[in-house]
């Protein structure tokens, strides 16, 4: 029990350190915000153009879709503050990852807590102020009750963990495949389409919607976004969270499995 507490303190220290380090990369953070906002407006106008002359499509109004795009872009902004995939791949290729492995901590966990730190910094200094202004100016649909807010935040957090596990697992494949070119593009495509990051699953053709429902990606953005705009409410929320949990458990187990294999591979090669 003591060691668990001590461990947690150690990992939180990683969060604190990366929070402080983020302050040194303010230029990068502003560049990221700039591009995030451009994409927000681009998608806003695309949906506006699609809805011109239409009241509602698939039972969804423009107001709802617009709010969906807003919250989705905000969450994607937060995700982008984490360690990027290529950084992990580079660590594996150069062998720098070995120095992480011989240290007395768990690398996937350390990376997660470090990302929490940089995301927190990015959230408070950039995303929160900017999106507060945008929300006040554009008046999107927001959760009606504190309960809905909590469910949204919880679901968004689960979504983050799912993406983290999947992306790190994919990054670790670099141990076996030095060149991941084509596979990588399929992976990114799957994440961006099936997570509902840009297009809500409501507008998918029936069969594709069914397929998306059976993939882990919808738990990343689609579920939290839908809770936020109220398209997912009441009795439907619990099963959706359950599915998110299930995918998190599965992707976590896969990550641990791949990680242990990768660790073995390093030991063999280093012998």
């Amino acid at each position, binding site marked *: 029990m003591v060691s668990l507490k001590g461990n947690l303190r150690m990992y939180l220290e990683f969060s604190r350190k990366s929070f402080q380090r983020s302050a040194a990369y303010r230029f990068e953070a502003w560049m990221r915000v700039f591009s995030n906002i451009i994409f927000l407006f681009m998608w806003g*106008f*695309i949906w506006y*153009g699609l809805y011109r002359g239409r009241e509602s499509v698939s039972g969804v109004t423009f107001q709802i879709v617009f709010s969906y795009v807003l919250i989705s872009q905000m969450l994607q902004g937060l995700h982008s503050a984490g360690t990027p995939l290529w950084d992990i791949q580079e660590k594996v290729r150069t062998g720098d990852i070995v120095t992480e492995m011989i240290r007395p901590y768990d690398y996937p966990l350390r990376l997660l807590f470090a990302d929490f730190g940089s995301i927190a910094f990015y959230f408070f200094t950039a995303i929160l102020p900017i999106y507060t202004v945008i929300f006040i100016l554009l008046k999107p649909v927001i959760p009606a009750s504190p309960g809905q807010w909590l469910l949204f935040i919880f679901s968004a957090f689960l979504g983050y963990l799912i993406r983290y596990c999947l992306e790190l697992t994919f990054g670790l494949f670099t141990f076996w495949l030095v060149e991941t*070119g*084509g596979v990588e*593009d*399929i992976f*990114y495509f799957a994440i961006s389409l099936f997570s509902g990051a840009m297009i809500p699953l409501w507008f998918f053709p029936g069969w594709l919607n069914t397929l998306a429902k059976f993939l882990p990606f919808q738990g990343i953005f689609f579920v939290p976004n839908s809770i936020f705009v109220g398209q997912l409410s009441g009795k439907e929320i619990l099963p959706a969270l359950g599915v998110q949990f299930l995918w998190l458990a599965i992707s976590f187990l896969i990550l641990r499995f791949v990680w242990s294999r990768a660790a073995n591979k390093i030991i063999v090669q280093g012998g």
Partner: protein
Amino acid sequence: MQSFVKAVHIYWYLVAASIRAQMQYRYAFVMNIVGWMMHYTGMGVTLWVLLYSFQTLEGWVFWELIFLFALSVLSWSICIIFFFHFRTLDQYIVKGTFDRFLVRPIHPFFHFMAMKFDIGAIGQLLFSILAFILAYSKLSLHWSFWKWTVFFGALLGGALIQGGIMVLISAIAFWTTRSERVFWVIMYPLRNLINYPLSIFPRAIQMVITFILPFAFVNYLPALLLLNKADPIFPPFWGSLSLLVGIVFFWLSFQVWLKGVNRYNSTGS
């Protein structure tokens, strides 16, 4: 004139070396091409899903949008063969390795341009030609000789416009020692923007994309002419001006680049 012929000769000699270098890693080379084809196919599929429930975007149907998309990727793939590595100019300046471009018997611009001849662009090229052929037949187009002239003018002009912007972005490095990041912040979002009809965006953005960074001439304006579509502001004949705009814009960017080189002081390291 003689020196120009010599410069072109040296340019192709360096290009041949660059191609040989890229072909050394055969597997990586092929995976890179496959990767780009996957990337753009993914974008096309996303467009299809987007249009599935709506059918039209401001009067543009799916295949017209694919045509717009293919036109931009096609000229972009020509552009990246020659200019994609210009975004990395900042590294040469920061490391002080830019000096060597100034002491060789070839113009520094040509020399830097010859640093890489990106044959990985075949991926984009294959995708966009395929997408173009599909769109052409799905829309049952039958172009006259004049329209084909406009089309090839748009390709060349589009490559020059985007090449000009790459040159301009690289020139920023002479003043600020930053170019790669500027590329990702300006070029990447803008290239995404022009995959959609310009008319969906507010007037101010349309003006910037037409008159300041003339991306509109890369695909939107030529597409209006080639697909017989109407726009509330731009008359169709503007689509035939791409090549002219491309030449002027590239020349201006080139002048800025030359100004930058004159201003360049080595870090001396």
